[in-house]
């Protein structure tokens, strides 16, 4: 794979823009706005510097104006206000446009925004020229800056050249540099390619702090750079510096002076490595193959009774399991990366709809497989749009009902066993049970006298094309939302549940598996066919004796410690034509809030299951979620337990038996 610096910059810039959006939104609400402004400033500064380095001059030039605006906010020249937040957000959007523009050429909107940025808060309408354009004569007017630069030890080895840096710095104005040698060890201990020198400098220049920091942009990683504006006379500053130096020199030989915590801003070195997602996918696929081959090897060793293989095979199994967990762990990302982008959505959408709402997120650190996260964004956007459009009342209505004017939407994620439950909860008007029922009767989905529980009625909303909205808006109401959400969640092997109380609010709970690639399965057999039941769904196994079937008069229920549990005969579901054993097994699974049994011939044990897609020809098979290749080379189908239950439910209602849906 060829390294493309521009592409890498684009990826980094996207991340920084996300961060900018978060910070900008928190600027409007949180305390400590100074720190947030600083954070914004740094993020824009990095985009500017890296953009210029990659030749994206339009991005760099535009960002320079935003940076200048933030510099004014930092200096206290302009106040932090909602208008400032808006402008920062618009600028963020504009940078995104510039980043994605094929030629990166600024358009009219860019110029308009630049003008707004420069004129904001009574600005002069002119901003300092970008650093590249700063002419650097010996300035009569200007400020004096004290600079302290402690390079990373590896700077020289990486090709960093302090002399060139100071030459550049000297172009900005009058520069005096002082190298500090007290950390240079003796000849026995010195590593010649490491940098032990550090520098203090005084610079008198009309250029701003950004221009100074820009000089060091290529050596920032792992270095400490402190740029302070001096209020005293340069001569005093030098004296102060010398005093500082002499005190440093009094330190014991070889001691590395710790930077004064109050003055230093440590430029943290990234300890992460950026890896393209497709490489990780390939790694996961390879581990999948490895897991399958390991299980074939284990089976072959067991069947051939080769005792000398037993220990190595067991050891291999342990290592492969560890490798599998670690590799899958690499793909886990905190769900907060997804939650972050919804703050803006809720802010913009509520403004558009004339509503007031706050989004509260919880459990942002909860981790999910990247492939699930990638596909979860769209359903959550649908849910939030629905929530704001239908559930949240206009502020006046809320006030009349005695509710706070601002609605609260709570988006949370929590681990439960091998699943993650994502909930979207609002304090709006709740689902109108009667309206849903009336609509369902009108559309002949239910009989007029049907006796349905609240849950059944709420679930009608999940049917395709179902909407009770009286008016279709560009936000929602077309009835394509919730069924799309349901379909997407089903595809992710998750489940969706609705709960609502009239006048108080609605909760949508989405239960998702942690990963889609490899699962722990229970291997069962019917006749000569083997199936995998996802272990996460299994609660227990019980026996079913032929006489018990007869005693129940053909009703498919079994008494498990006093509870009647319905069971599904998988032999019928899959039309397997082989004699039943005298004693069958029932694998009891948890489906939503009830327990359901699945009758099989034998339970063979647990199995590390690598999920393989069945391919597009079999994509409509409802009751299986994939297949896996067994140790002996046979293919086992992985049961989609909720779909099996739904299928059996339909069978009970005497619908035509069909494995292939739609």
């Amino acid at each position, binding site marked *: 794979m060829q390294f493309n610096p521009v592409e890498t910059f684009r990826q980094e810039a996207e991340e920084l823009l996300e961060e900018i959006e978060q910070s900008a939104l928190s600027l409007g609400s949180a305390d400590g706005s100074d720190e947030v402004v600083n954070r914004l400033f740094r993020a824009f500064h990095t985009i500017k510097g890296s953009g210029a380095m990659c030749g994206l001059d339009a991005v760099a030039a535009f960002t320079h104006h935003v940076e200048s605006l933030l510099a004014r906010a930092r200096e206290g020249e302009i106040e932090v206000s909602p208008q400032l937040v808006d402008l920062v957000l618009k600028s963020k959007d504009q940078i995104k446009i510039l980043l994605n523009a094929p030629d990166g050429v600024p358009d009219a909107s860019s110029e308009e925004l630049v003008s707004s940025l420069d004129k904001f808060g009574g600005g002069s309408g002119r901003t300092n020229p970008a650093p590249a354009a700063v002419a650097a004569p010996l300035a009569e007017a200007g400020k004096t800056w004290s600079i302290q630069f402690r390079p990373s030890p590896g700077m020289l080895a990486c090709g960093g050249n302090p*002399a060139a840096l100071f030459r550049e710095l000297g172009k900005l104005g009058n520069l005096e540099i*002082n190298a500090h040698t007290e950390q240079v060890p003796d*000849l026995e201990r010195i590593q010649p390619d490491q*940098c032990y*020198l550090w520098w203090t400098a005084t610079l008198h220049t009309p250029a701003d702090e950004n221009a100074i920091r820009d000089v060091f942009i290529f050596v920032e990683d792992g270095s400490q750079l402190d740029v302070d504006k001096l209020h005293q006379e340069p001569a005093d500053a030098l004296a102060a510096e010398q005093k500082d130096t002499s005190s440093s020199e009094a330190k014991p030989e070889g001691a590395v002076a710790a930077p004064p915590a109050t003055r230093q801003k440590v430029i943290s070195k990234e300890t992460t490595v950026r890896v393209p997602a497709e490489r990780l996918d390939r790694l996961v696929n390879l581990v999948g193959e490895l897991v399958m081959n390991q299980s074939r090897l284990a089976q072959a060793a067991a069947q051939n009774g080769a005792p000398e293989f037993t220990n190595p095979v067991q050891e291999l199994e342990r290592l492969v399991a560890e490798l599998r967990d670690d590799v899958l762990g690499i793909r886990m990302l905190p769900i907060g990366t997804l939650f972050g982008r919804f703050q803006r959505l809720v802010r913009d959408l509520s403004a558009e709809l004339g509503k007031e709402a706050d989004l509260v997120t919880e459990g942002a650190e909860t981790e999910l497989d990247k492939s699930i996260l990638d596909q979860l964004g769209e359903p959550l956007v649908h849910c939030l749009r629905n929530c704001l459009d239908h559930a949240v009342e206009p502020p006046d209505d809320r006030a009349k009902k005695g509710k706070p004017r601002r609605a609260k939407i709570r988006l949370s994620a929590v681990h439960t066993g091998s699943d993650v439950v994502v909930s979207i909860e609002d304090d709006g008007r709740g689902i109108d049970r009667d309206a849903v029922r009336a609509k369902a009767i009108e559309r002949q989905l239910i009989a007029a006298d049907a006796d349905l529980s609240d849950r059944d009625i709420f679930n009608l909303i999940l049917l395709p094309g179902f909407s009770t909205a009286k008016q279709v808006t560009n936000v929602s109401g077309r009835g394509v939302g919730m069924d799309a959400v349901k379909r997407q969640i089903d595809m992710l092997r998750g489940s969706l549940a609705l709960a609502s109380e009239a006048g108080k609010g609605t909760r949508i709970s989405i239960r998702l598996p942690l990963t889609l690639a490899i699962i722990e399965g229970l291997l069962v057999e019917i006749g000569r066919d083997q199936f995998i039941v996802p272990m996460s769904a299994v609660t227990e196994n019980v026996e079913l004796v032929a006489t018990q079937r007869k005693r129940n008069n053909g009703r498919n229920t079994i008494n498990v410690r006093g509870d009647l549990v319905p069971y599904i005969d998988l032999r019928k579901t899959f039309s397997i034509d082989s004699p039943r054993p005298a004693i069958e097994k029932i694998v009891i699974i948890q489906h939503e809030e009830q327990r359901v049994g699945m009758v099989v011939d034998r339970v063979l044990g647990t199995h590390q299951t690598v999920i393989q897609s069945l391919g597009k020809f079999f994509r409509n098979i409802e009751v299986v979620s994939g297949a896996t290749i067994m140790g002996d080379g046979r293919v086992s189908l992985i049961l989609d337990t909720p779909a099996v239950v739904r299928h059996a439910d339909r069978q009970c209602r005497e619908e035509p038996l069909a494995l292939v849906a739609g």
Partner: protein
Amino acid sequence: MHYAAIPRERGACGVQITQTKTDNGTTFKIQGELDISVAAGLQRDLAECLRQNAHLTVDLADVDACDTAALQLLCAARRTALLQNRTLQVFGLSQAVTIAAAGVGLSLDELGASASISPQEQPHAI
């Protein structure tokens, strides 16, 4: 002794070290391009030379280029001499060395050079 940067042709660049015994000790003469690529070899030889000689004179008059890593190494040599109670003097600073030191704000004293002796006056002073 001759060090060359790894990717470079031997003799095309790099440094040439000559050690000469005199009445006042040993002269350690460095010629050529003194940079990070030859610093490791220079470190070894300077350390060895300091171990064997109580009085060492480093002659930099024929240094054609000098970088920060090399300047830092010369600082380390001076520090080592002080610690081991030996004398190390740098004479014959070439223009390349003085420019390099000035470029990073390093005082010539830090290298063990006597400020009173200019390179023009005593280019090869021992």
